[in-house]
């Protein structure tokens, strides 16, 4: 029994002879009816209200129509799927230094370097194989921090579920480079 924390000046429950029942002990309370009615009222009200639910994965989490609910505005710092960044000539910036592979705590990156084509006079190597197992990845962003070339970035793109594990091994840089939904955050140039 909870007693109200105030001085009831003699008007409280046990002040007079015939006391009011304590909360939760009145007939109404004991039959649960008013409470149930209150609940149904709430349910019906909500039933007719606009929903928060995002029908993921058919709907994107970052649909702007949900902005008024306080969700959905893409947080540019959210660490989602990776992209391999391209330079002005459309080549991947990655020089296959394997630092991201070494930094990854989950050991989910697999890279095999190869010598760059002879026409690429500004760099010596590039990745022959670049695979990230997106299921093992913990999206910590260490690879992005380790990269000396700004070649790998985590975009806020929420992952799209697949039906098999192998689909979630993003193989070959091509797949990683094609992320049209990716909102690549702009970095200010010094």
């Amino acid at each position: 029994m909870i007693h109200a924390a105030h001085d009831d000046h003699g008007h409280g429950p046990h002040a007079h002879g015939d006391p009011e029942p304590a909360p939760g002990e009145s007939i109404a309370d004991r039959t649960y009816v008013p409470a149930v009615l209150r609940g149904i009222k709430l349910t019906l009200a909500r039933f007719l209200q606009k929903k928060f639910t995002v029908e993921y994965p058919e709907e994107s989490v970052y649909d702007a129509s949900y902005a008024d609910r306080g969700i959905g505005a893409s947080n540019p710092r959210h660490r989602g799927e990776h992209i391999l960044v391209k330079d002005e000539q459309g080549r991947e910036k990655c020089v296959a230094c394997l630092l991201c592979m070494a930094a990854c705590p989950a050991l989910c990156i697999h890279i095999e370097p190869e010598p760059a084509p002879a026409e690429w006079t500004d760099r010596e190597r590039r990745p022959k194989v670049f695979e990230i197992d997106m299921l093992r990845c913990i999206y910590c962003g260490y690879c992005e921090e380790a990269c000396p070339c700004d070649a790998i970035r985590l975009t806020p793109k929420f992952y799209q579920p697949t039906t098999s594990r192998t689909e979630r091994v993003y193989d070959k840089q091509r797949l990683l480079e094609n992320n049209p939904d990716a909102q690549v955050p702009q970095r200010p140039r010094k």
Partner: protein
Amino acid sequence: MTDTEHDFTFAIDGKSIPARKGDTILKAGLRAGVFIPHYCWHPGLTVAGNCRICLVHATKTMPPGKPVIACATQAVEGMEVESDGPRTKALREGVMEFLLVNHPLDCPVCDQAGECDLQQYSFDYGRATSRFHEPKTQRPRKDLGPLIRFVGNRCIVCTRCVRFCEEVAGTGELGVVGRGAMSWIDTFPGVQLDNPLSGCVADLCPVGALLDRDSMHTTRVWLLRGTESACGRCATGCNINVETWNDQVRRLTPRENQAVNRWWMCDEGRLSYKEAQAPTRVRRARVDGREASFLDALTRATDEVRKAQGGVVALTTGFATNEELFTLKALVGKGPIAVAYAPDGSTFKARDGFEISRDKNPNRKGVEAVLGATDAGEAAVIAALEAGKVGLAIVHDGVPGGAPWSPTLLAALKKAAALLVLAHDDVPGAPAATVLLPAMHWTEKEGTVVNGGGRVQRLRAAVPPTGDARVDLEVLQELARAAALQPRVLSAAGVFRKLAAAAPLSFDGMDYNGLGALGVPLGEGRAARPASNGRALPVVDARTGYEAGPVSRAPGRAGDEQVRVSVHRESAVGYGTPRGDL
């Protein structure tokens, strides 16, 4: 002189260091386990003294108070050297800063990353920040030879490569050209760097200026797992590391063994791992000409050996390990064995005693020691075959490219009731085998071989056999058990034990695990202790599985944290800890 004999003592950082007459501070210090950084000094080359990273403060020098380079300063009785103190720290920081001034920020694309002395000493002794805000000098980048690429910007002009080509290889293809900060290494136009040991300059180069083109841009050093083995390209049997990644051999590098290959290995041996990856490799077993699973083929082979009931002949090569030879000998019993040797090839004698053997069979001496035969028993085998008494002929041909069997021998094989062939490569002209099994390359085998100098050395398997195959020794052992010659299939260690016990062979007294990393000469099994080359146990970073290269390369540096490693007793013996010490 053994390790403990010395002529006098001096002190480094208060620790007493035994030294022999004529020792420099650096040499005596390294021998005693005190590490002093160095770039241009190498135990196999003359002293240059130009990198200055080994500067230390020492007493009894002239003029007093001036720092001296440890690699060129003779130690004297009672000298006190400061190598781990604030003054020496400042010296090293200074030299490191100078080295990094014009050095490009190439670590992400430089293959030396992970085994680069510049990186290591920068981490250990360098400044954290740079004060250099100027444009850096640019120097040429070119291929000096078929195996070596030179990246001029990274060169610190330590001249190890120049001295190597002059003093060891004797060919002198390299020279320092230019002057001052615009100095770099170059060859004369038209004279490439192509001496038989040219790959060693890439090993020697402390930074990523000279790179091995074969393994360039294909992997990272910290991903490589090294296995100590012996090269099978010729009878020299250089001690090497077989470095693999994802169960594929990526490169071979030499290990130091003063009795065999000093610190070097030749280019042919360096590239010989490619033999195991050749497209002509036999990969699938075949029974009666049709592909079959290995197990099926092995079962058929054991059936044939049981049927043969002792009428077995064998053909083998100078590439078989001692254990395989011993098992073959048991299999044929009183029957003949023919041995085909690969023909002689090119030889080369370096100026410091290193020699590429003309004999391209890694285990000819082993054949002589195990089989007791110095001549091929080809005639006896042909005779047995012609007489029709052969139930099973075993051809064990582990030679990459095939051994030079004589055509008459190959023709006579048709007379065998059954023919079991273990082949490394498809041998054209060989008759159709009843069972064909893949034979393993020496990078894939466990066993021992005897090099041209009579030294018994361990081969260690660096990669597992491909597919469902098993190593040759297992196959032969299965056959031996099937022929009721022994109750159990033995490992290489087990076979070696039997081999060593079979006196009066020269393996008497040798212990398989006791052969260590450096091998034991024939006939010295009783006397020799396993020689340790001073290497620490390779410390594997358990978290990542990467081999922590620099930690294991530099013995006993001050400041090393305690690393606790648990090893099996047998492995510990293999690394040079005598049994009694455990």
